[in-house]
């Protein structure tokens, strides 16, 4: 990509532009908002991870010997709610997306900077409501809030928890809106749609889902609160209401939300593979359009969460077929990434290791998704550990690997410093092994019939559960390592320079860390993305 040369003496970078707390809390700079999100979601991740650790320890033995059933039920609810809405959904979009989108577009900021900051405050308010719900007794409904359990029978702070998620939803909507308008209106001159980096395409698809699906979740949670708190029954079977209507509304959001939790990861993987293979992504246009295809088809498959719910057989058939079809664009992405390696010149730095980890784990997650889309098989493995393993392969194996890969890839840009490469490679390996040891046994457990949300289980399942818990310990260690060395690097790491990876993309044409307004003058784009020189000449 050819770009006007940067000026000789750049203005101070965004980190140096102000060091007071006030300058952070009132910032309109998308890069600082990204870092505010980074700290917040790391804290939520830590809390949710502790809950997961407690659950895994409880599951070491078949009996209930660490926590009571009520505590266990609160733990998995807390784990699900925090991980889904307060870590995974904001992870790549709000941290990496916020930081990179304007940089990749050659813009000084997002379209609505104040709305961007407001979205963080809304997010924080939602998170605090959820924390309050946890501290004042917790919630035992599971993150799915199924009625009539949640509206009538559950103990605990269901209303507070639902209110927290409801509020956080508006932060998602604000971010999605901001991204859509930014991508439409703030592209640098010459940056046409098919010159956009694939990460931007994935964020665009994600934003469409955020904007169109989140309000449905909001209204659904509002109805739960009305029913539970004010007796305004909407789903109550005693009045002729239908609990399945709740499930339809809930999954109309929550299935597309699964793609919020994977599309941005796919975008990150495309960027890193292009950079470390030093090649344009094979089938760029197909990969870009597949993101949109996933976003659109993703809205039409929610009913596959309800194959055994007593919904109509014909609905089951349609949703099953569509679920198979939505897997096609995902598979196509994996094929295209593989083909990109053909005649490439590949360097195995940490970001690529994470991208390869993503490809492996996402492939397993995707293939087992086909098992679940198959009606007759789903009846058997539905609501068992098979499902748990499947969606952790997508969300943790996929999204978290991509998130960590992206954090490493753009770390020099974010912090202006290099991280310790050797340690980072070891951590990536530990995380990959720990992850597989944790979740692969759960496929087998599920096939053998261990239902989810059980804190006690028949003794024949113990060996596999012990394996899984051992893996979780390794995984926890793996997650701690980057936290430690990235913190160190932020203050003490060697300076990175503007473009340590010699990558293409507008974000690498400005200083590291970038100045407050990103570019001294608006860049002009005259070529496609990933315009790497011929590998042979390297």
């Amino acid at each position, binding site marked *: 990509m050819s770009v006007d040369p940067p000026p000789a003496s750049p203005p101070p970078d965004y980190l140096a532009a102000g060091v007071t707390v006030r300058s952070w809390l009132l910032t309109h700079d998308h890069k600082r908002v990204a870092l505010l999100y980074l700290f917040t979601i790391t804290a939520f991740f830590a809390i949710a991870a502790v809950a997961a650790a407690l659950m895994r320890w409880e599951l070491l033995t078949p009996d209930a010997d660490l926590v009571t059933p009520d505590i266990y039920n609160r733990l998995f609810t807390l784990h699900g709610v925090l991980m889904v809405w307060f870590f995974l959904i904001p992870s790549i979009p709000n941290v990496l997306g916020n930081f990179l989108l304007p940089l990749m577009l050659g813009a000084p900021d997002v*379209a609505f900077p104040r709305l961007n900051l407001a979205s963080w405050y809304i997010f924080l308010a939602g998170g605090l409501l959820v924390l309050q719900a946890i501290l004042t007794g917790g919630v035992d409904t599971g993150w799915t809030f199924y009625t009539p359990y949640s509206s009538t029978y559950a103990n605990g702070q269901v209303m507070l928890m639902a209110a927290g998620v409801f509020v956080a939803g508006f932060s998602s909507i604000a971010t999605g809106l901001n991204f859509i308008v930014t991508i439409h209106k703030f592209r640098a001159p010459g940056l046409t749609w098919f010159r956009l980096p694939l990460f931007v395409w994935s964020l665009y698809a994600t934003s469409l889902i955020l904007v169109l699906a989140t*309000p449905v979740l909001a209204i659904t949670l509002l109805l739960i609160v009305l*029913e539970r708190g004010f007796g*305004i029954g909407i789903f109550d079977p005693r009045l002729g209401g239908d609990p399945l209507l709740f499930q339809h509304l809930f999954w109309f959001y929550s299935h597309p939300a699964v793609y919020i939790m994977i599309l941005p990861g796919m975008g990150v993987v495309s960027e890193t593979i292009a950079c470390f293979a030093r090649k344009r992504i094979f089938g760029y246009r197909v990969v870009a359009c597949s993101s949109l295809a996933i976003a659109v088809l993703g809205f039409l498959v929610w009913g596959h969460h309800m194959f055994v719910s007593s919904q109509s057989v014909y609905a089951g058939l349609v949703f099953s077929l569509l679920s198979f079809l939505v897997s096609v664009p995902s598979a196509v992405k994996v094929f295209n990434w593989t083909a990109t390696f053909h005649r490439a010149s590949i360097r195995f730095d940490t970001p690529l290791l994470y991208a390869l980890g993503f490809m492996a784990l996402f492939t397993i997650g995707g293939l087992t998704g086909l098992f679940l889309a198959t009606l007759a098989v789903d009846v058997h493995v539905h609501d068992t550990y098979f499902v748990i393993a499947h969606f952790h392969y997508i969300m943790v194996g996929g999204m978290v690997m991509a998130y960590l890969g992206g954090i490493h890839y753009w770390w020099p840009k974010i912090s202006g410093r290099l991280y310790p490469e050797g340690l980072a490679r070891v951590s990536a390996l530990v995380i990959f092994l720990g992850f597989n040891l944790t979740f692969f046994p759960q496929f087998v457990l599920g096939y053998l019939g261990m239902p989810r949300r059980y804190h006690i289980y028949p003794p024949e399942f113990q060996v596999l559960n012990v394996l899984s818990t051992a893996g979780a310990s390794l995984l926890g260690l793996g997650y701690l390592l980057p936290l430690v060395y990235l913190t160190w690097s932020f203050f003490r790491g060697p300076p990175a320079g503007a473009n340590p990876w010699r990558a293409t993309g507008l974000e690498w044409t400005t200083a590291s860390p970038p100045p407050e307004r990103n570019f001294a003058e608006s860049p002009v784009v005259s070529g496609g993305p990933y315009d790497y020189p011929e590998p042979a000449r390297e």
Partner: protein
Amino acid sequence: MNLAPTCPSGTPAHGESVNRLGLWVFLATEVLFFGGLFLAYAVYRAAHAAAFSAASARLDFPIGTVNTGVLLTSSLAVALADLAARGRRVRSARAWLVVAGLLGAVFLTLKGFEYHAKFAEHLVPGPGFAFAGPPPAELFFSLYFAMTGLHAVHLLAGLGALAWLWVRLGRHPTGDHTGAVELTGLYWHFVDCVWVFLYPLLYLIPPAP
């Protein structure tokens, strides 16, 4: 929500187009927000047609009809305010905003009377609900209160926006307010549109054969 953009090219036209796209995207989320309720309505109306018909008969048809007229007229006033703002006739624009705001207030007041009557007649869902008819009637009233309540909240926000606009026009009588008036108007029309669907769905259900 402040929609002031950072505009790289710095032209007002670009800034306006940014705000306009932002508002349309926002309205799209609003459609989906109400969409959940409309879906619930459709499902239950299909399942419990007779109960819905019986329950709908207890709504205050005259108030609902008058309110429809009131709200449609307010939209006209907002459109006239927009026209005036385009012609830089700020005084006239402010006057039309006041008319629209007053009509909005009339709508909410009438709605308040209607709600009060429902409380008095024990038609508010919950433990005190008393309706001589099939139980799914309570679902109708749940939906009635959820849908009209949510609509009223949106209308209240619209009144706030009109007031903000009125103050803004008063403070800077010579400025260009085309964009702000247009966007506020779009929102107001949207809220009006929602009512255009709510009115027939809730008030105009024919009696069961």
